[in-house]
C-alpha cells in the first residue's frame, strides 16, 4: 500500500513555455484565479438588483464579506482611513490563499494525473549512486585479491546493482495534474515578497524618506544596531511568510495522503475537516500579519 504513496515536496512540471516550467500548482492557481474573477464578475452584476424587494443574495454575501473584513482590519489599524487603504490587500490575501488552500482538498487534486518515465531523472541517478557505492568497495577488494567467496559476493552485488539500475530506468513516476497552489513554495514566496514589498511601499507613502530612518539610524551605536536588526527582520519576514504557509499546507497534504493510504475509508474524514480549518487559519494568519506589518510600516520609528 505504501508503495503507491506519491509525495513530492516540489511541484511537478506539466509543460514548459520557454524558461517557465508550468507546474501543476501554477495550473491550480490559474484555475482558482479564473474562478474567483468569474465569481466577482457575477457579484458585480448582481449589485443593485433586487429579488422580491430583497437584495440579491450575492450582494448580501459581498456586503457580509466586506463588512466582516472591515471590522477585522479596523481592529488592527484603529484608523478608518488606513483601514480603507488596507482592505483590498487583506481581502485579496485572504481569499486567494483560502481558495488555493481549499482547492487542494477537492477530490481529484493530487490524485488524477499521468505516469511519467523517470529515465535520466534525479530519482534514477540517486538510486544508481546508492547502489554503486558497495560495488566500488567490492571492486577495490578484488584488486587486493581477497578470498574467492568475497569475489563471488561482489559479483552478486554488482549484478543486483545492474538489475536495480535497469529497473529504475524503466520506472515511471506519477505526476498529478493539480496540486494546491499554496503547497508550492514559489506561490508562497511570491505572496510573501508581494506583502513585504507592499509594506515598504506603504511605509514610504506614509512617512516619506524618513521611513528609512528605521533601518539607517546613526544617532548612537545602539540605534544603529537596532536598524540592522530591523533590516534583517524585513528579509526574515519574507522567509517566515513563505515557509509558514507552505509548511502548513504541504504538511496537511502529506497527512491526508498518508492517512488515505493507510486506511482509505472514514479515517481521513476528520483530517479533511482539520485541513479545511487549517486552510482558513493560515489564510487569516497571513492576511492579518500582512496588515499588522503594513500598519507598523506607517508608524514612525520614534513613535514605537
Amino acid at each position: 500500500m505504501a508503495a503507491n504513496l506519491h509525495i513530492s515536496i516540489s511541484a511537478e512540471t506539466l509543460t514548459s513555455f520557454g524558461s517557465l516550467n508550468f507546474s501543476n500548482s501554477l495550473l491550480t492557481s490559474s484555475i482558482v484565479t479564473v474562478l474567483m474573477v468569474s465569481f466577482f464578475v457575477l457579484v458585480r452584476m448582481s449589485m443593485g438588483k433586487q429579488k422580491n424587494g430583497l437584495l440579491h443574495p450575492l450582494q448580501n454575501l459581498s456586503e457580509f464579506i466586506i463588512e466582516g473584513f472591515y471590522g477585522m482590519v479596523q481592529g488592527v489599524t484603529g484608523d478608518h482611513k488606513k483601514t480603507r487603504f488596507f482592505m483590498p490587500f487583506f481581502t485579496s490575501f485572504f481569499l486567494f490563499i483560502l481558495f488555493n488552500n481549499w482547492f487542494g482538498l477537492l477530490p481529484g487534486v493530487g490524485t488524477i494525473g499521468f505516469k511519467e518515465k523517470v529515465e535520466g531523472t534525479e530519482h534514477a541517478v540517486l538510486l544508481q549512486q546508492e547502489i554503486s557505492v558497495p560495488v566500488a568497495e567490492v571492486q577495490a577488494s578484488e584488486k587486493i585479491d581477497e578470498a574467492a567467496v568475497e569475489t563471488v559476493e561482489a559479483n552478486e552485488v554488482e549484478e543486483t546493482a545492474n538489475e536495480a539500475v535497469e529497473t529504475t530506468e524503466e520506472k515511471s513516476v506519477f505526476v498529478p495534474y493539480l496540486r494546491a497552489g499554496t503547497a508550492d513554495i514559489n506561490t508562497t514566496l511570491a505572496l510573501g515578497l508581494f506583502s513585504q514589498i507592499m509594506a515598504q511601499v506603504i511605509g514610504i507613502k506614509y512617512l516619506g524618506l524618513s521611513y528609512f530612518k528605521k533601518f539607517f539610524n546613526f544617532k548612537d551605536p545602539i540605534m544603529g544596531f537596532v536598524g540592522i536588526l530591523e533590516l534583517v527582520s524585513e528579509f526574515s519576514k519574507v522567509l517566515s511568510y513563505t515557509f509558514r504557509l507552505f509548511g502548513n499546507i504541504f504538511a496537511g497534504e502529506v497527512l491526508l495522503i498518508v492517512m488515505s493510504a493507510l486506511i482509505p475509508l472514514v479515517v481521513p474524514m476528520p483530517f479533511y475537516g482539520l485541513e479545511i480549518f487549517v486552510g482558513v487559519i493560515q489564510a487569516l494568519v497571513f492576511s492579518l500579519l500582512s496588515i499588522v506589518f503594513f500598519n507598523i510600516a506607517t508608524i514612525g520609528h520614534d513613535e514605537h
Partner: protein
Amino acid sequence: MDIQLPQIIFQLVNFGVVFGAIVYLLYKPTQKILDERAKRVADTLKEVEKIEEEKEKIQSLKTKTKREADKEAALILERAQKSANVKKQELVEKTKETLQAEMKKAEAAWKEEKKQLVAESKKQIAEAVVEVSSLVLGEKINAKTDEKLIAKGIDQVLQNI
C-alpha cells in the same frame, strides 16, 4: 524545493489579477453601496433629530401659548367676576331703592286708603248710631248735643276695634 523566478512572477501576476478583480469588482462597488447606505442612515437620523427638535419647539410653544391663554382667561374671568360683582351690587342697591320706594308708595296708599276707610266707617257708623239713637231717644235731645255724644261713642268704638 526548487525556487524558480518565472514561476514566482507567474504567481505574482495571478495574485495581481485577483487583487485587481477584488478592488474593482468587489471592494469598491460594495464599499460604495455601504457608504451610500451609511450616509442615508445618517441623513435620516439627522432628519429625525431635526423633527424631534421641531417637535420640542412646537411643544414648548404650545405649552407657552397655553400658559398665556390660561393666564389671560384667568384675568378675564377675574375681571368679569369683579364686573359682575359690581353690577350685582348695583342691581341689589337699585332693587333695594326701588323696593323701598315701592314700599313707601304702598304704605302711603295704604294709609290714604285706611284714612278714607276710617272716615267712611266713621260716617257710616255715625249715621247708623244717629239712626239708632233717634229711634231710641226720639226727639228729647237736640241735634248739637247728640252729635258730640255720638262722636264720643264712635271714638270709643274705634278704639275698641
